């Protein structure tokens, strides 16, 4: 099965993956500082894990990293779809396969022998986080330019609802990252492959 001459991850994927990780870390940390300026829940985010120092600084980070996320994300999606990799790597996908692989994973019986191949749980998680990132960008666009994008604004339920959508999409992304990092820790070989390509 395993063909050692084939790179597990092409260079463009590794580049976009790490640029994305950088953008997401900056956006999340500066976003938390922006949230703290007018929190709509009972809690604020501890200052120590926020970026920017004050609201103006946090906004500068946020509105710089947003370009990196959007441009890099677009490059990833275009390369992924354009090369046919998206279809090849993430499909077919069925709810039954997700449940089966999830149960196998919980019993410790999921094989990681071939890193060329994503199991159904990985496929689902990666596809969901792609959709979530698109939702983050679109809701962010409504918060930034609510007057200039009326259709998007109304689709997301207006400015105030878009704020919540943006927050929950962030929370989902952070939850993904937590699980993602835990999985990488369980199978460290995947990290080597994501850095070196094989």
């Amino acid at each position: 099965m395993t063909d050692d001459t084939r790179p597990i991850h092409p260079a463009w994927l590794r580049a976009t993956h790490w640029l994305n990780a950088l953008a997401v870390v900056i956006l999340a940390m500066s976003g938390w500082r922006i949230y703290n300026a007018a929190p709509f829940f009972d809690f604020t985010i501890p200052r120590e894990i926020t970026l920017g120092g004050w609201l103006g600084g946090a906004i500068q980070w946020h509105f710089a990293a947003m370009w990196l996320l959007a441009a890099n994300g677009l490059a990833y999606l275009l390369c992924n779809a354009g090369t046919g990799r998206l279809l090849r790597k993430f499909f077919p996908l069925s709810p039954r396969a997700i449940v089966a692989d999830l149960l196998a994973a919980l019993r410790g019986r999921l094989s990681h022998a071939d890193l060329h191949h994503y199991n159904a749980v990985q496929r689902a998680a990666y596809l969901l986080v792609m959709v979530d990132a698109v939702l983050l960008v679109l809701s962010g666009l409504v918060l930034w330019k609510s007057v200039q994008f009326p259709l998007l604004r109304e689709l997301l339920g207006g400015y105030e609802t878009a704020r919540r959508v943006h927050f929950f999409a962030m929370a989902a992304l952070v939850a993904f990252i937590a699980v993602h990092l835990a999985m990488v820790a369980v199978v460290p070989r995947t990290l080597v492959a994501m850095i070196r390509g094989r």
Partner: protein
Amino acid sequence: MIKTSPRRLAIDGDAVVKEALRRIEQPSRRLFLQRSLTLGGLSLLSGCAIVDEESAEHALMAVSRFNDTVQGWLFDPRQLAPTYPESMITRPFPFNAYYGEDEIRQVDADSFRLEVTGMVADKHAWTLPELQALPQTDQVTRHICVEGWSAIGKWGGVPFSNFLSRIGADTSARYVGFKCSDDYYTSIDMPTALHPQTLLTLSYDGQPLPPRYGFPMKLRMPTKLGYKNPKHIQVIFVTNTYPGGYWEDQGYNWFGGS
């Protein structure tokens, strides 16, 4: 008819860059940023001092200028902000300024004069009754604060484009600047100044504008964030020289549009 030029900001890229450099050089705001921007996170991100903090600041300011340009380009002079029924007005409408409620400026109505300077034909100073005699309109719109919160209010006054044409403003100029009696100052792009919902407001919710909302007048733009909407306006000037703003000089984005 006033001709609007929404692409102005996008076209003049060179001038924008020059201004950005000039502003970065300003010692006062450099100090401010050094104190503020670098704390809380940058060192976390960079390990220790691997990332040169000063060049990070330069880069962030340059991106902020780039974002001004993009916003000037995205701004559609015909795109209206949503309006709301009066039943949706936020009560009480929040007070917000760079100082507390106990420091709200009291402006004397009788001695008040609005000065108009710069690239305008008619520089006579306006009394309050003169301004009140101009045709008025009102609108219920959402005020969005840079902090993220928003509130709906009802403002009434003179469409700013009418006022600009009355004073013979050169609408091919790039900026309209404002100086206020609470020492606040800010400036906006000409396309936004000419936007149909940009109002030189004299009233709030049917009453003369109370001191907490900026007596005797506030420029209300539902297409811009709160800090771009000056209160207690004393001087309006039309210029091609970038006038900056109280918050903008400290790092808030200049265009500040929504």
